[in-house]
């Protein structure tokens, strides 16, 4: 497989709803350690609102799917993660406008502009112990390598994201609530990096299922 259909994108977004409900307590526990104990609830609230929106969506192009996801997250989540993930999908929707499939390259482009949007809004840099730390290596890993399949690349990205999320543990947070803790943020995984890893894992799982 070297491209991805709107149907798979839709299945991915729907799968996220389940995954974030499953991992709600885990994300909240991470956020309780260095934040305010709401990240699990925020992600679950945002993503569980999406299937209902997709059910009534007429234009199911990928751009429209991403935009719907973006607007739902922005209007349902609040907190830091709402605007950030919302912006990710809003920016990602632009290159996908009107498209019903994305090539591997196009998918990378969508996500890359999504990430740029997150960086512009949140102004975090790599190493600040945020979702950026998981998304950046994940999207780098997503780019086609030796003409491998999209499925393999996404699996590689998911692994990269998971490892990168774990790698936030020793870092000192410099953005978001965790930054107020200074050195006390060391020793805990960033909840946003963990949720980003889940987001990419959800895509990998969706591709695997539909393969």
């Amino acid at each position, binding site marked *: 497989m070297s491209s991805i259909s709107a149907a798979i994108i839709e299945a991915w977004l729907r799968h996220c709803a389940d995954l974030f409900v499953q991992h709600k307590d885990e994300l909240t526990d991470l956020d309780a350690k260095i934040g305010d104990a*709401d990240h699990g609830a925020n992600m679950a609230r945002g993503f569980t609102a999406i299937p209902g929106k997709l059910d009534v969506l007429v234009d199911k192009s990928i751009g429209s799917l991403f935009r719907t996801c973006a607007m739902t997250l922005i209007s349902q989540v609040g*907190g830091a993660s*709402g605007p950030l993930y919302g912006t990710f999908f809003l920016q990602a929707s632009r290159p996908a406008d009107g498209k019903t499939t994305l090539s591997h390259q196009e998918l990378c482009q969508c996500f890359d502009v999504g990430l740029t949007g997150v960086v512009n809004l949140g102004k975090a840099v790599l190493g600040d112990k945020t979702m950026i730390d998981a998304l950046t290596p994940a999207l780098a890993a997503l780019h086609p390598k030796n003409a491998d399949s999209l499925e393999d690349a996404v699996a590689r990205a998911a692994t990269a994201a998971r490892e990168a999320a774990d790698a936030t543990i020793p870092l000192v947070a410099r953005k978001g*609530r965790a930054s107020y803790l*200074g050195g006390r943020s060391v020793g805990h995984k960033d909840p946003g990096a963990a949720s980003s890893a889940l987001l990419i894992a959800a895509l990998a799982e969706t591709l695997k299922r539909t393969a």
Partner: protein
Amino acid sequence: MKKLINDPENVVTEALKGMELAYPDLIKVQYNPNFVMRADAPAKDKVALISGGGSGHEPMHGGFVGIGMLDAACPGAVFTSPTPDQIHAATTAVAGAKGALHIVKNYSGDVMNFELAAEMLRAEKIPVESVVIDDDVAVQDSTWTAGRRGVGATVLAEKLCGAAAEDGHPLGSLRELCKRINSQARSMGMALTSCTVPHVGKPTFDLPEDEMELGVGIHGEPGRKRTKLAAADEIVELLMEPIISDIPFKSGDEVLLFVNGLGGTPLIELFIIYRKAAEIAQRAGLKITRNLVGSYITSLEMAGTAITLLKLDDDLTRLWDSPVLAPALRKGI
């Protein structure tokens, strides 16, 4: 978890419903998206003041909606910034031709959500300005952090700007006033206990019987430092020193001293804190000409206190003394 609540998911809407029923003369409550607005909205011939933030800080902000204070408040989920939709809806509901000022506490989430809302509003040609409040001296090194948090100064800014808006100040001058208030205020807080986010069901952190958290914010997050529990007077020294030395406040300054409870601390303790804080301020040559003592910006049922000092001048003093009639603050009406 021991709370007077029903389904944790309904805490915010049920509390809003309670406010709506309790203060029909002062406020109206809108749901989906949630916001509280003045009963006499939209604002006529005045700039509208809108604030908002996570819930769990009651009476802030909904309790400050009323004559001489806020025009609208947007309550998010517990400890979660409101969404741009809420802020947009609240602003369009209350703002008139003179535009709107957003008073935003400095948290990444609050700042971003208000920013997105302001973009939406500007696209609709509604004049809107934002001021970010960041008075918490517990966050020391702002280049390596998300910057200082907005805490107690928010309450004072809402009261003072509310009075100025009522006086007819235009948007630009209100924004400058709000910035000036923020630049002249400093705060620091501490906690004796954690608090429990309703849908989480267990305390955000554990704090042994003989320890306290210094430099906490208002979201149940741990503070800058955990130390041995100390006597009240010593705690007040630990809070006042960084506050006074930060601006720095100097001998002869007229100040407003605000001793705030974090939700689970009874008034008798706040008076003990006030006593020592006043003594320290006086020792530093400050003249406390106005004050506020009570639980005005809270962190659910957290036990603890936060102190705010605001440098006053004749203008701010007059604005402080102006009438206000909101569910949680009343004066002169």
